[in-house]
């Protein structure tokens, strides 16, 4: 899966759970900056991303104030690991 496609999935999942359009998600900002997001919605989005990308995102990651881009990069790295095994 290409990195751009992973970013698309991440943005779409976050936007859908937050109830905003994908254009409202600033990928250079932390997830907490997404309008309407809160921890339960974020967890749901993470679950959607896991299902769609076939990865497991450790809980640890959620406690970091990562940006949307960083989350997508992290998911892409997990995907690469998964396919190389």
């Amino acid at each position, binding site marked *: 899966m290409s990195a751009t496609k992973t970013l698309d999935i991440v943005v779409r999942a976050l936007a859908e759970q937050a109830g905003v359009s994908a254009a409202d998600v600033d990928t250079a900002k932390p997830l907490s900056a997404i309008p309407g997001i809160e921890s339960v919605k974020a967890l*749901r989005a993470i679950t959607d991303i896991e299902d769609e990308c076939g990865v497991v995102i450790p809980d640890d990651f959620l406690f970091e104030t990562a940006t949307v881009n960083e989350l997508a990069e992290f998911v892409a790295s997990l995907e690469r690991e998964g396919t190389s095994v």
Partner: protein
Amino acid sequence: MVQLWNELAAAVHDGTVLHTPSRQEEPVSGPALFARAERTAGAVIAACDGRKPRRVGLLMANGEPWVRGLLTLFRLDAAAVPLALPVAFGGADAYAAHVRRIADDASLDALLIDGSLGSRIVARVAAAVPHLPFIDIAEPPHEAVELPPVTGGGSAPAVIQYTSGSTSAPKGVVVTHDNVSAGLVSIEDGTRWTAEDGLGQWLPLFHDMGLFTMLASVRQGTPLHLWQPGDFVRRPMKWLSEFAASRATILPAPNFFYDYLIAAAAKGIPDDLDLSAWRYGGNGSEPVRRSSLEEFQRTFEPYGLRPRVVQPNYGLAEATLIVSSGVPLTGYRSLTLDRASLSVGDKVKEAAGDGLTSRSVVSCGPPVAGLKVRIGDAEGAPYDAGTVGEVQIGGDPVTSGYLGIPEAEQPFTPDGLLRTGDIGFLHDDELYVVGRLKAMAVVRGQNYYAEDVEEIVKDTPGVDRRHCAAFAWDDDGEERMVVLWETKLDPDTATAVGEAIRRRLSEHLGLGAVETVSVSPQTLPFTSSGKVKRSGALDLYRRQTNPVSAAPEGQHT
């Protein structure tokens, strides 16, 4: 005088099995769990330079080590201090500072960990409290060592439960062995718990409702199925199937749990879902909505949900949990009341029907055994039945106060009842809770304190002279925190500051239900000692919003 270790150890048997389905742990029987706790106690003493620790924090996700760690501390007559886990996106630094404040306030001697939290966050916490040993109890030691005899109990603290202090001064409720033992009797009475029951629970064990309900199950010797909050939040319908398959009969939850499952059901319910074993579903720790109860029943009745399983209840850490509960398998009561009759000192008036000026209030049931409930004023003078006042409680389960807080600031009436800060009334000997005096919003079962919110808002660049006020607001049963802040900035810049405030609250407190309103400098009212008047700020907010849709002050559905 009770020593909880002895009391609980005597209650368990081979049928008292602890299952943790999401943790890949083998189920463990009660006697084996206590044997493991004894071995763990040896390891804890060794890690504390050969001495019994006095107070120890539990920094773990739900699992066998959490339960075992708690029992270990009872064994050692050390007070357990459950630590809330970080919220998603909360930021590791803010969390580490939060743990440090509690470690300082409680004078912790050590922290119990088990690897369930992730090494990065634990490393940050460790850096914030460098003097504390972190004892990894993931695996109990294989060898037992000689332990000192079981001592203490009675009026010694068993648990110190922190209720606030995410950013401001921490407040720990001290509950003794005697309090807990009496509180478990009250839980058993409220739920009519018997040896035939079994507990199914995803609530975090660091939450008062999760902690004391788990202990009630141990004391009854009944099986315990323990999930993690994330299991339910991430995949609610899969979780519900697992709960149903466990044949657990008792489940504690806040109101949002029921709404969340209703929403999840819209995407499909497994055909083979069988909820017929479920007997008591507590609905507590946040305002109970009648619509949630009704809709939940409608949605899941075709899947074996018995009528009247879900029972509203009312409790708080200060009561070692439960104060009142709907009587299991009886219909809950509710009243439709005139909104204008719900302020302190008012005699409640039934409304002619549903409408904007009326509000339905669900009964939280009669007080449970062991709890005395009085509706009174600040001095403790009782109000008549049907009159709104503060809910004040007494009895053996009730705490004797907060840790390290001066006598004058302890929350008691002159005659010694605990002031809950919640307001309500009694009707036909049942308790109806209609709001609260304390400055706090409840969102998804979590308490968020105005004081914590204001501490964060004050430090946000653009807030003029650190002037702000926060208070809870209720919109048709959904609570949010409203923040008023003073600014000289132009509207566009002020909007950006409002966004920054919301983001900081989300990062530091995990609070997303926030409305920010900028006001001109010198508009917020302050007391002569410089404290913001939240009630005055609320009036200001109410004048700025549509008066028809706004609920009266302090009113919560």
